[in-house]
């Protein structure tokens, strides 16, 4: 990833569920400079919402911690990095499976990673148990090449 970064923003907030809407709207506002379609914007918002919710529910489990988002625009592409310093994911492959949830009692659907994977063009999950998780997602905004 040696491509030139055209624009960048960083966001840090407490892991409170009331910040979920704030996070996805801010990322969507930043992405809007690429002139995405309403659908592309909705995809980005949903993927960000899933990742932030995961950090709040799973990584910090109700405790207060910091969720960090770094957004970069690279050659008509938006790259979103969402990281936390929570408990980490033990088995990423299992966590990625559709309908798998480690918290069925909370009425979770287990679709978080599946949604991120299908709504974005690229998804990378890095996690160390006890140290935290970093999600990197990329989406091509077609219009930027017109």
């Amino acid at each position, binding site marked *: 990833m040696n491509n030139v970064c055209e624009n960048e923003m960083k966001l840090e907030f407490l892991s409170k*569920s009331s910040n*979920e809407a704030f996070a*996805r709207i801010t990322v969507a506002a930043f992405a809007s400079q690429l002139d995405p379609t309403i659908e592309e914007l909705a995809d980005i918002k*949903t993927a960000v919402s*899933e990742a932030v*919710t995961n950090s*709040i529910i799973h990584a910090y489990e109700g405790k207060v911690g910091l969720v960090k988002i770094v957004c970069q625009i690279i050659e008509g592409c938006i790259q979103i990095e969402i990281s936390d310093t929570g408990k980490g994911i033990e088995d990423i492959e299992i966590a990625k499976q559709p309908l798998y949830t480690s918290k069925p009692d909370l009425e*979770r*659907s*287990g679709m978080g990673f599946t949604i991120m994977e299908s709504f974005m063009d690229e998804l990378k999950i890095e996690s160390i148990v006890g140290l935290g998780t970093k999600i990197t997602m990329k989406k091509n905004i077609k219009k930027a090449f017109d």
Partner: protein
Amino acid sequence: MDWKYEKEDKLLTLTLTGEIDHHTAEKIRRKVDYEIQRYMPKKTIFDFAYVNFMDSAGIGLLIGRYKMVTMLRRNTRNIKCKT
């Protein structure tokens, strides 16, 4: 959230509005459960026409309500979604 109950058909229509995420789903869940238990409808319709954002928390909410409704009235498929 808005609701309408039609007595003769025992039909409960729940119109959800705004954004459904992990934060708002909890409040919606409480309201929906209250209305379903109050009316004990034969059929429940969720109207999503006025929802402008929903993530997996919304799916979880629906699956949870479906399970609840089937527990209340066994062997009936009585949740319909309208978008």
